[in-house]
């Protein structure tokens, strides 16, 4: 395995099935990620990451799928879907741990510009997913999250 560029971890009070559904369901993914994830999630199938009703920002293939535990996809810009220098790999691990779910995202093979783009994106996506699954709120601004934060 290549050395991952980034590893992100969050713990969510929910079930692995709900995390899997939130990542693979187009409508739910759009509610916390802004963009919807679209595929039949079978190994070898294409997948797309896109604003609802728009052309995709990311395209790729499903490399591994073991619901609700592990999903590995390739990521590439739609303009160069087959350029090996532009293809990165995202592994999502969903583990049950003492009543919580440990969600790990490992992003590998990123070029420098993608690294910069991604480093701002994943923490927001994961903390919004956590808020959604723990509070049931949908967030109007996935990269803001302030409006959706629960009051204490």
């Amino acid at each position, binding site marked *: *395995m290549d050395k991952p*560029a980034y*590893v992100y971890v969050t713990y969510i009070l929910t079930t692995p099935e709900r995390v899997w559904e939130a990542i693979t369901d187009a409508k739910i993914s759009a509610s916390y990620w802004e963009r919807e994830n679209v595929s039949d999630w079978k190994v070898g199938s294409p997948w797309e990451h896109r604003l609802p009703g728009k052309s995709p920002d990311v395209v790729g293939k499903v490399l591994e799928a073991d619901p609700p535990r592990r999903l590995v996809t390739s990521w590439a810009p739609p303009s160069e879907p087959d350029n090996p220098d532009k293809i990165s790999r995202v592994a999502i691990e969903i583990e049950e741990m003492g009543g919580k779910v440990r969600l790990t995202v490992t992003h590998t093979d990123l070029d420098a510009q993608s690294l910069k783009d991604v480093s701002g994106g994943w923490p927001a996506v994961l903390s919004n997913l956590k808020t959604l699954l723990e509070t049931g709120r949908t967030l109007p601004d996935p990269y803001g999250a302030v409006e959706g934060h629960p009051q204490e």
Partner: protein
Amino acid sequence: MADDMDRVFKALADASRRRLLDLLYADQGQTLGALAARLTMTRQAVSQHLALLEAANLVATVKRGREKLHYLNPVPIHEIHARWIAKFERPRLDALADLKQRLEGDDDG
């Protein structure tokens, strides 16, 4: 959850641990040996700090062969950011941070 947040703030309340996060921010995926070589601390002390950071979920680890690689995991820090910084304030806060950094240079707080 309060416990998780307490762990994050306690882990951050130490200059050596903040320095470790700085080193990982600059270069992700370092081994314990590589980190210890860059700090004036025993390997054992670095290992204890890393364990505390990992318990607070500020550091994530990946095993590669016999090596354990350490990554800065910024998700809990993003939660703090999202909790108290409103979206409209961000561009101005970024501008202030840039200005402060230009005037003062890089500084480990």
